[in-house]
């Protein structure tokens, strides 16, 4: 089916509006519905987290926002356009480390997408340097991806995605493959970077701590097929050692444990 972006009237104060989105996929056995109803919105400069247990369709939802797949029902409107194709206005950071081009240096991995989108060679290089510095990778600009650690690779991916000045940054469990220490550090770094660039963020995770650390609002997906059960405001949750944080975490936990799914867990094991 041809995907042509359709222009609708953009809503003031809303960058992304998802309404009654239904997503599924074909298997040899038939059609499986992954997401039954996703309805939520993202305001400009907001950091929205989509959380849910493994397999709940949150990555599928992100892919739909990115334009890789299309909802079978409902609509996704980003900045006044629906029926989206993939594009740099919604740049994505994937979970896999090998999302960088192995034949390009760190700097070129960030600069190349800019050139693709019309930036002149010199300007692209300068901007790339800026974002490489922003993600604390200036010392590694001329290295090739295979010489980097997992955390560094994800930083490059973030630099690349942000350098494109997207309307919205999409992240699909970006720190899921990292050890907990690196993950915690990158979450903090991400916060700092996003605040500095004033980016709108939609991040998918199964980690409650990540949701509470990074997010302004948390969209909780649960059930099978999944629905948005609640959108929790976590803007003023504070540090992990505060009672407010613990309360919020408990609340998320209860929402995620709606059915028999006890998979929304950070590996603490209960």
């Amino acid at each position, binding site marked *: 089916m041809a995907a042509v972006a359709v222009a609708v009237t953009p809503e003031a104060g809303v960058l992304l509006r998802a309404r009654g989105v239904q997503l599924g996929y074909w298997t040899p056995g038939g059609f499986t519905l992954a997401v039954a109803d996703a309805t939520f919105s993202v305001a400009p400069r907001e950091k929205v987290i989509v959380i849910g247990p493994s397999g709940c369709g949150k990555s599928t939802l992100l892919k739909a926002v990115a334009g890789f797949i299309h909802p079978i029902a409902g609509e996704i409107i980003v900045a006044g356009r629906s029926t989206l194709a*993939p*594009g*740099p206005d919604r740049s994505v950071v994937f979970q896999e480390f090998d999302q960088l*081009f*192995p*034949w390009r240096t760190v700097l070129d991995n960030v600069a190349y997408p800019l050139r693709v989108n019309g930036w002149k060679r010199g300007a692209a290089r300068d901007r790339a340097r800026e974002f490489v510095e922003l993600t604390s990778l200036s010392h590694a600009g001329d290295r090739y991806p*295979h010489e980097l650690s997992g955390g560094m690779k994800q930083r490059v991916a973030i630099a690349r995605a942000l350098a494109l000045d997207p309307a919205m940054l999409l992240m699909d469990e970006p720190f899921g493959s990292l050890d907990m220490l690196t993950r915690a550090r990158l979450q903090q770094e991400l916060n700092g970077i996003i605040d500095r660039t004033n980016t709108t963020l939609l991040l998918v995770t199964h980690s409650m701590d990540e949701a509470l650390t990074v997010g302004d609002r948390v969209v909780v997906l649960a059930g099978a097929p999944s629905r948005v059960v609640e959108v929790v405001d976590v803007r003023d949750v504070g540090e992990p050692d505060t009672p407010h944080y613990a309360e919020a975490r408990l609340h998320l936990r209860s929402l995620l444990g709606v059915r028999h799914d006890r998979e929304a867990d950070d590996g603490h094991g209960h």
Partner: protein
Amino acid sequence: MLLAIFVGAWAAYAAWSEFGQNDLLFASPLETAQAFWDGWRDGSLADATWQSLRILLLGVGIGASIAVLFTVVATLTKVGEDALSLLTAIMNPLPGVAMLPLAMLWFGLSTKAVLFTLANATIWPIAINLTSGFKTANPTILAVGRNIGLSSVRLVSDVLAPAALPNAITGLKTAWAFGWRTLIAAELVFGVVGGEGGLGNYINNAKLYLFTPQMFAALVTIALLGVVFEYGFTLLERRTIVKWGMQRS
């Protein structure tokens, strides 16, 4: 060094065995070296080598271009994929030289016939490797390519092609080896190709005049060239897939 032992054994055999002492049938390392040196000095070996290389380059070039064309079509259309699969299954097991009589029938005793045979020897290994390279390209970087706004054409040229480079090099190495063997064999059968003789012809001529040391010298040349080719490919790999950490076992 292993090489010294080998040459030593060779010299010993030439000096002391009955077969080895037969000047008509066997050349010692010294005689071979002399013939080798003479051949290069008077240009006959050099000309023959260059002639062979020239045709090899052209033949592999043609084969590679056709292979790329086939592969791109096969990647873009289902019918192309099936067709290529079928063609490859039929043609790949065929030794390159087997096509030579047919080529001679169609093109006569000309360079075209040799090029046709060469192309056929090289298309299939390249197509097979390139296809598998395209198929096994990392889907994440393809998604990244689409995400940053690459057109389909640029997706193939800027992402798919480099991603398939390890396979492309493997294919090229195989094609080169097949091509080289096919060419020498064809020259042996053919005699003179395109006005001047290549290394196969040189060997044949030497046989005709019973210049056995020259035969040995030509064989040494062929072997040496093989080593040079391999080194060339290793250099290519070092500058590309090794540098990029893309080398697969």
